């Protein structure tokens, strides 16, 4: 425990990132003890109340208690991010290891698809996918839609890492001693890349949350679920900004801000673990 604390003092980015994400977790956990999730539905409170004793975050135009909306919606948004990020990094890692370890035609094809896919604006393709699916999306479907492009960037970066790793002596040694391809990947390469994979995962989660909020702000999310992005959609739909209903967008904005900053500093901190050379230059 003390060693962890000492390390965190040396790596303030990691500490800050963890602290911000803990704050969010704490808010959700404590909030769910205090708040009735039913209040996140429309018509459960008087409409458009500014923050008060009864409704600390105020209420929106459809009569949702915004505190309840935040308590219910934050984990939903995070869930979309985590599912999509996990699928993205998992798929990306498999493709990257296959491409970089075996090279040849598989590498050409995988790298080609990832390179071309990355130049295409992801949000627009996701919009096209979301529009093509009939009916409203559930939260899990939303995660899958976002995951459909989330593997591109991890594939590219992990591949580059594996390429440099596979030329090292110990991999050569393993190959000469007759280890099979998959076991070299799992036993020799994977453990060395774990910190890097961790940083990539955090990055992917952040990107997936951003993509899901983007889709939701445009009205392509799970319409009847109170995620953070859907809250912003209603903010924009009802022109809350111009009408001066500041409490409506303040809470989701602060939470989204905290999540992104937390994830960002976590990546910076993990990068430092993964790549100790950064320490000297920083």
């Amino acid at each position, binding site marked *: 425990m003390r060693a962890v604390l000492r390390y965190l003092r040396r790596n303030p980015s990691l500490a800050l990132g963890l602290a911000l994400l803990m704050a969010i977790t704490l808010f959700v956990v404590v909030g769910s003890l205090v708040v009735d999730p039913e209040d996140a539905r429309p018509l459960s409170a008087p409409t458009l109340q500014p923050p008060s004793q009864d409704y600390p975050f105020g209420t929106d135009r459809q009569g949702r208690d915004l505190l309840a909306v935040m308590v219910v919606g934050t984990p939903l948004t995070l869930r979309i991010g985590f599912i999509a990020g996990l699928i993205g990094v998992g798929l990306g890692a498999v493709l990257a290891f296959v491409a970089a370890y075996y090279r040849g035609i598989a590498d050409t094809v995988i790298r080609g698809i990832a390179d*071309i896919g990355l130049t295409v*604006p992801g949000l627009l393709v996701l919009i096209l996918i979301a*529009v093509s699916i009939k009916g409203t999306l559930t939260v899990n479907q939303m995660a899958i839609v976002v995951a459909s492009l989330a593997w591109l960037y991890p594939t590219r970066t992990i591949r580059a890492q594996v390429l440099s790793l596979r030329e090292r002596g110990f991999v050569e040694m393993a190959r000469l001693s007759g280890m099979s391809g998959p076991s070299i990947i799992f036993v020799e390469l994977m453990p060395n890349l774990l910190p890097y994979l961790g940083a990539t995962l955090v990055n992917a989660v952040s990107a997936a949350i951003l993509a899901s909020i983007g889709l939701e702000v*445009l009205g392509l999310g799970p319409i009847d679920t109170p995620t953070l992005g859907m809250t*912003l959609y209603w903010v924009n739909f009802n022109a809350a*900004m111009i009408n001066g209903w500041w409490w409506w967008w303040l809470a989701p904005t602060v939470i989204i801000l905290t999540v*992104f900053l937390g994830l960002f500093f976590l990546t910076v901190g993990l990068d430092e673990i993964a790549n100790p050379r950064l320490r000297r230059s920083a």
Partner: protein
Amino acid sequence: MQLAYIARRFGVFLLIVWLAASLNFFLPRLSGQDPVRAKLLQQASLGGYVAAGIEDMTREYEHRFGLDKPLWRQYVTYLGDMARLDFNYSIANYPRTVRDMIADALPWTIGLLGTTTLLSFGIGSVLGALLAWPRAPRWMMWLIPPLWALHAIPFFLLGLILTYLFAFQIPLLPIFGGYSAGAAPGFSWHFVGDVLSHALLPALSIVLVATGGWALGMRGMMVTTMGEDYVVFAEAKGLKPPTIFLRYCLRNAILPQVTALALALGQILSGAVLVEVIFGYPGIGTLLLQAIRENDHFVIQGIVFIVIVALGLATLILDIVYPWLDPRISYRRT
């Protein structure tokens, strides 16, 4: 050999265009029946403001796509339409064509995005280079934490905050639309000023965030470049610090930034779409939001196609310019 390089890059560009068109064609059809047709009929049954054109449209639609023909014939016809940038009529705004609507919106987006990207790339790169330069003034170090924090925020979230600040706290700048409601579009000084003042906040929310990213990237590259032997050699030769900074360090460190720019264009555009939505800026993003609300499938498809093609073109130009920036990359090898 220069020609072969350009030809190959152009081939990749064509591949992207073809993929975009195919995506547009196959994605809606994957879900079983054709939702475009379903939407048309749904609109027809709703009646209202589209009723006038719906008969024509359905006939035109069936004729053009030849729904009785085999899939590959439909596909070939569709590719032909896309090549001529013919995206059919807007479902919600008949008889306007999708091409007209996009042509109206595109200049706004290109103006906003082009200016902000160039500004943030330029400012960010120079700033980042200075941040790594030991002779830079010390107060610049204080810029790093805010740049980091800004860089992690999505464009549109900063847009929301700016809207609030300028709508209520310091009501100086307009926060909605592309120009004032009464203003007559034209080339008068008054109108140009009006447009610029409307563009300022959306532009600011992109530039503030994006500059941080470019500055951080540049700073990292500068640190690496300044450790190179040729920089030490230049110092030993007694060259003036500005020469070393500009010709030896900056010139080399900016190359990966250009590569990153080519890769980031898609992401920047995705972000800018949402900024337009927040500010009601009359570009592609707002058109897209409107099309999504009205279930205007042709407009959505048209926008996706045009944007992918435009970004493919921008990437192609950057690819062709790159060997000129970095003569070490010969046209032959890549």
